[in-house]
């Protein structure tokens, strides 16, 4: 079960169309944009080994420092590509049109990036932090041998899930166990046996590493393409607080519960969504849609459904959730949180959640 979902994720990619910034073009005609499939779990600076040679003949002489920009917004290089896409493209744009720069690094907006090393360091630090959150110490990560660390990083860079699992299993960062997952395992068809080893004997409930990207808007919008654009990083709040799982006998700890714990002031008045039968069937919940049109449509329908329900049932709330997006999908909020954690987390063991909240104008938050 975990294996299937993880495979989908690791194969997930965002089609990018990368344009060289016009001020940096020295050839006539200007070079056509580069078309690249960027891994969701990867990072933009890691693409420069492909992009640089492509554009090198058009560049002015000098030292290159690669940075990317979307509609004028310099992109933070330590955020995984998939998360940037989910956050900045309310209405998914395919291909995603980005501009690459090799000069004029905006040091006032972006922290320096020295290529692959910076990204690797940031990744390992996040992994240490995740280990600390899950186990109460970062020992396993700190004691990793050099070769293991290298293998782990290389597996992430090349998208090699097998190699990744081989090394990361030594870190004993566990999976979250709960009744729901057990029931699913019992009821699924045979021929699924091989992927269950990570389930056995690993019970790690408690604190879950989460990176929450909160984007709040003042106006309402029905269609994602009408959503206000993010043109400034000040419009996003980065919340780095572990989610706490509290299991109650007979009750499932849902994504909604987890978000409530992370953002209590936004969730206290909101009813649980999804009492009526949803358009998406239960089985759709289990599939991770790949980046294609059909899943996109159903995801959008899900969001509209969500928005309509939200408006009809909330009268006195100061805030309403417009969108919750994880790994490019918008899960129903009553999905078991343990499933989300076990299946949708990034290789550094963080769950990245993009959430758009509409706050009534004039509210001081």
């Amino acid at each position, binding site marked *: 079960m975990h294996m299937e979902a993880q495979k989908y994720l690791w194969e997930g990619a965002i089609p990018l169309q990368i344009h060289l910034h016009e001020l940096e073009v020295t050839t006539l005609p200007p070079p056509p944009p580069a078309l690249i499939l960027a891994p969701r779990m990867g990072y933009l600076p890691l693409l420069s080994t492909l992009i640089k040679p492509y554009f090198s003949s058009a560049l002015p002489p000098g030292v290159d420092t690669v940075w990317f920009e979307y509609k004028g917004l310099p992109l*933070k290089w*330590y955020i995984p590509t998939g998360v940037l896409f989910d956050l900045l493209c309310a209405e998914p744009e395919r291909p995603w049109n980005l501009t690459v720069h090799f000069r004029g690094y905006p*040091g006032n907006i*972006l*922290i*320096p990036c020295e290529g692959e090393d*910076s990204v690797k*360091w*940031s990744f390992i*630090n996040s992994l*240490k*932090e995740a280990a*600390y*959150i899950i186990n109460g*110490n*970062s*020992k396993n990560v*700190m004691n990793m041998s050099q070769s293991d660390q290298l293998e782990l990083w290389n597996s992430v860079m090349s998208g090699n899930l097998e190699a990744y699992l081989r090394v990361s299993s030594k870190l004993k960062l566990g999976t979250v166990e709960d009744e729901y997952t057990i029931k699913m395992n019992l009821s699924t068809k045979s021929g699924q046996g091989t992927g269950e080893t990570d389930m056995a004997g690993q019970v790690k409930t408690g604190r879950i*590493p989460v*990176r929450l990207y*909160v*984007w*709040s808007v003042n106006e309402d919008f029905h269609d994602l393409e009408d959503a206000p654009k993010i043109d400034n*990083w*000040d*419009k*996003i*709040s*980065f*919340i*780095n*607080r*572990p989610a706490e799982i509290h299991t109650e006998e007979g009750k499932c700890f849902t994504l909604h519960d987890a978000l409530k714990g992370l*953002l209590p*002031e*936004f969730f206290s008045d909101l009813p649980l969504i999804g009492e009526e039968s949803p358009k998406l069937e239960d089985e759709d919940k289990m599939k991770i849609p790949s980046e294609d049109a059909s899943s996109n449509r159903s995801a959008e329908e899900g969001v509209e459904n969500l928005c309509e329900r939200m408006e009809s049932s909330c009268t006195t709330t100061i805030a309403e959730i417009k969108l919750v997006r994880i790994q490019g999908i918008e899960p129903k909020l009553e999905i078991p949180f343990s499933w989300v954690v076990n299946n949708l987390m990034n290789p550094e063991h963080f769950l990245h959640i993009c959430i758009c909240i509409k706050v009534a104008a004039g509210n001081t*938050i």
Partner: protein
Amino acid sequence: MDILSWDGALSSSEFSIAGHDFIEKWKKFNPTYPPWSWVTCKKQSCVASHEVEKYLSLENISLLSLCEEDHGDESQIGEEEISCSEEEEPIDSATLVESFDREVHYYDFHIVYSASYRVPVLYFRAFFSDGQPLVLDEIEKDLPACSAKVLLESKWTFITQEVILSYLCISDWNGYACLPCI
């Protein structure tokens, strides 16, 4: 709180209380030094009701060069004075390295509560007078000798490069941090 069984972790409200206490003690023991202040996240979309979004800040502290005495515990933080002090400071501050040019280094310190590590984390960065940042090697030279030794041996070590502070609702921090290494 039972000190004997305490694992060192703090809740964010405990940090808040401790922070206020720290500010008062700093004023009391270091009256000539600039005070620490609380800073609240000013972002438009910031969730300001959580205490984790407040942090302690002490910025633009200048360190001047000292005379040749090389005793590890000497320290000087101030504006214009240049003098050798033999007295023990209650708070361990940076020693000044003998420097013929009398360079001035400016330091920014933030103490931020980390919900992940459940401890306060010290973030720091240093600049030359022209605004150019100092790298860690240069900052280490500003430390008292005993601290530098502790730095090597202790389990609390520095991260030797830029740290990302934006995950704490503050814009990206181009500096260093002391993170737990346990």
